[in-house]
């Protein structure tokens, strides 16, 4: 097993699945990055993280140091300021933050403390989905341990810097992962997104400067501080710094999650790490980074899985957790499943998303059930335009249109067959086999 030098996020995981307690974490160099950070100027930490080219692992890929740099600093800055770890992981097919929260909670916490120090935050929240009950338990225990050792609370390690931290357990809604919706949720309001600008860095939680970072993003901060930006960039096979937690689900031999150099190709992840397709299943295509990204087929598999390369290949890295569709899955049914999810999870605030997504879902369902009509594909295509970026309040509906747009292109024939044959060829096949 590669050590922490090559796998800073997972190199020290316990093999029994438990989370290391604070003693064990410290024994492997844990909280040394925090000690180092507290002797550095916050602006220097921001600079180091920016130079490391750590890009937001929630899916947007924005440079983390740059994101922090918009927070007003110094004595005249409005206080209190807030740092929030976005642990509301609910992007379909995504299961990476769960691993960090459950099995490396102190790394997440150390990253949060350093990030808070870098933006001079006074309080930090872990915004966690209810379903991650084990993560809640382990994070709360680890936070209590960190308080006990003086890594949290007033005057941390005699630095004069203080930070309070707690876990907020949400109650299940995909939109809460959108950072401004998350702020409304924390304030006890319906979690609808806010208009931007102003951005949270200047006007966030209760109108105060706030940074919201993904769990995996924050976990990368301690290694950057310990090893430096140059070392961190060297971990990667691309321009984006560091490693990435890549996952594969679906009919492959070994579904799972691996920390690999950023820029590892989709083919290597699929074939070497996930072991290729399971016996009896043939590859059709994959969704590279959670449900809200475009499909990649066989000819695109050599794409390097980093933000810019996947973008150039016509999709998005997203969360870096791939969903493999095999030939036994009807692509129309798969798209219905995806669009139904987005329709259900639309917060209902803006009309195109609230009305458009259920329309899209119903139409795909009709096609799947054999009630599709000529012209339906064109209506779906129209929606990929009318629910696109700039026409809705937040990125939920455009995210829902990404798989639909590429799906209508690469599965066009399948859609047409459903309409012409008045039913799902996959279902008919299954019925024939069963009979």
């Amino acid at each position: 097993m590669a050590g922490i030098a090559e796998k800073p996020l997972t190199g020290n995981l316990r093999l029994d699945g438990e989370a290391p307690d604070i003693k064990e974490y410290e024994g492997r160099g844990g909280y040394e990055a925090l000690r180092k950070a507290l002797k550095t100027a916050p602006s220097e930490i921001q600079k180091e993280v920016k130079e490391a080219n750590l890009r937001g692992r929630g899916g947007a890929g924005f440079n983390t140091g740059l994101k922090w740099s918009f927070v007003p600093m110094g004595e005249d800055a409005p206080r209190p300021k807030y740092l929030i770890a976005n642990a509301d992981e609910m992007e379909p097919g995504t299961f990476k933050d769960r691993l960090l929260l459950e099995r490396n909670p102190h790394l997440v916490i150390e990253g949060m403390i350093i990030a808070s120090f870098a933006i001079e935050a006074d309080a930090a929240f872990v915004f966690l989905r209810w379903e991650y009950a084990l993560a809640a338990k382990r994070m709360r225990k680890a936070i209590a341990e960190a308080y006990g050792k003086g890594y949290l609370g007033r005057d941390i390690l005699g630095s004069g810097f203080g930070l309070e931290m707690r876990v907020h357990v949400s109650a299940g809604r995909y939109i809460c992962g959108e950072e401004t919706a998350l702020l409304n949720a924390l304030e006890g309001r319906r979690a609808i997104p806010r208009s931007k600008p102003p951005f949270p860095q200047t006007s966030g939680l209760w109108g105060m400067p706030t940074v919201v970072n993904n769990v995996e993003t924050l976990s990368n901060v301690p290694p950057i501080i310990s090893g430096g930006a140059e070392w961190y960039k060297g971990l990667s096979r691309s321009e984006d710094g560091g490693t990435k937690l890549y996952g594969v689900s679906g009919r492959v031999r070994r579904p799972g999650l691996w920390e690999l150099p950023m820029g590892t190709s989709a083919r290597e992840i699929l074939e070497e790490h996930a072991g290729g397709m399971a016996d009896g299943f043939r590859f059709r295509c994959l969704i590279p980074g959670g449900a809200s990204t475009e499909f990649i087929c066989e000819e695109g598999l050599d794409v390097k899985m980093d933000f810019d390369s996947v973008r150039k290949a016509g999709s998005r890295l997203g969360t870096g957790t791939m969903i493999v569709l095999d030939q036994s899955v009807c692509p129309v049914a798969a798209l219905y499943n995806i669009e139904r999810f987005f329709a259900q999870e639309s917060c209902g605030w803006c009309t195109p998303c609230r009305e458009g997504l259920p329309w899209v879902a119903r139409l795909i369902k009709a096609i799947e059930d054999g009630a599709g009509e000529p012209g339906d594909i064109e209506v779906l295509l129209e929606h990929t335009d009318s629910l696109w970026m700039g026409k809705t309040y937040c990125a939920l509906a455009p995210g829902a249109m990404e798989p639909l747009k590429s799906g209508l292109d690469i599965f066009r024939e399948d859609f047409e067959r459903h309409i012409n044959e008045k039913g799902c060829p996959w279902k008919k096949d299954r019925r024939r086999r069963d009979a």
Partner: protein
Amino acid sequence: MLSDEERLEIEEEIGRYAQERAASVEALMSVQRRRGWVDDETLGEVASMLGMSFDELDGVATFYNLIFRSPVGKNVILLCDTISCMVMGYETILAHLEEKLGIRLGQTTADGLFTLLPVPCLGACERSPVMMVGEKLFPGLTPERVDEILREHGWRG
């Protein structure tokens, strides 16, 4: 009526925030942990503790998938119905659950033991299909495994 214990817990949560309403979700969950769901009368009492109107708090409560505004069974089954679990055959598991429990999605068994609900991606896609019963995650489901899990929770089928 809120019990003293519930009231105390909610007051403690309120005390952690500068604004009372920030404790909305924690307060509703305090009630739900004890009663399984949140009825109108209790929601009204919680709302006045938070300085909110009934409708405001109901607006928050009904926004979430996991705050229940109608009665649920002793064990709430949350079955993931999202894409990775679909590829791995959650539909077979759903049909099996519906048959064994004699209910459809969204319903509660007559003996009040189980409520069956769909849930968006549970973030355990490498172990699909998955479901939760209460706060516990059950991965790698097969019809046989589902029967075992149901039995562990008091099912006598």
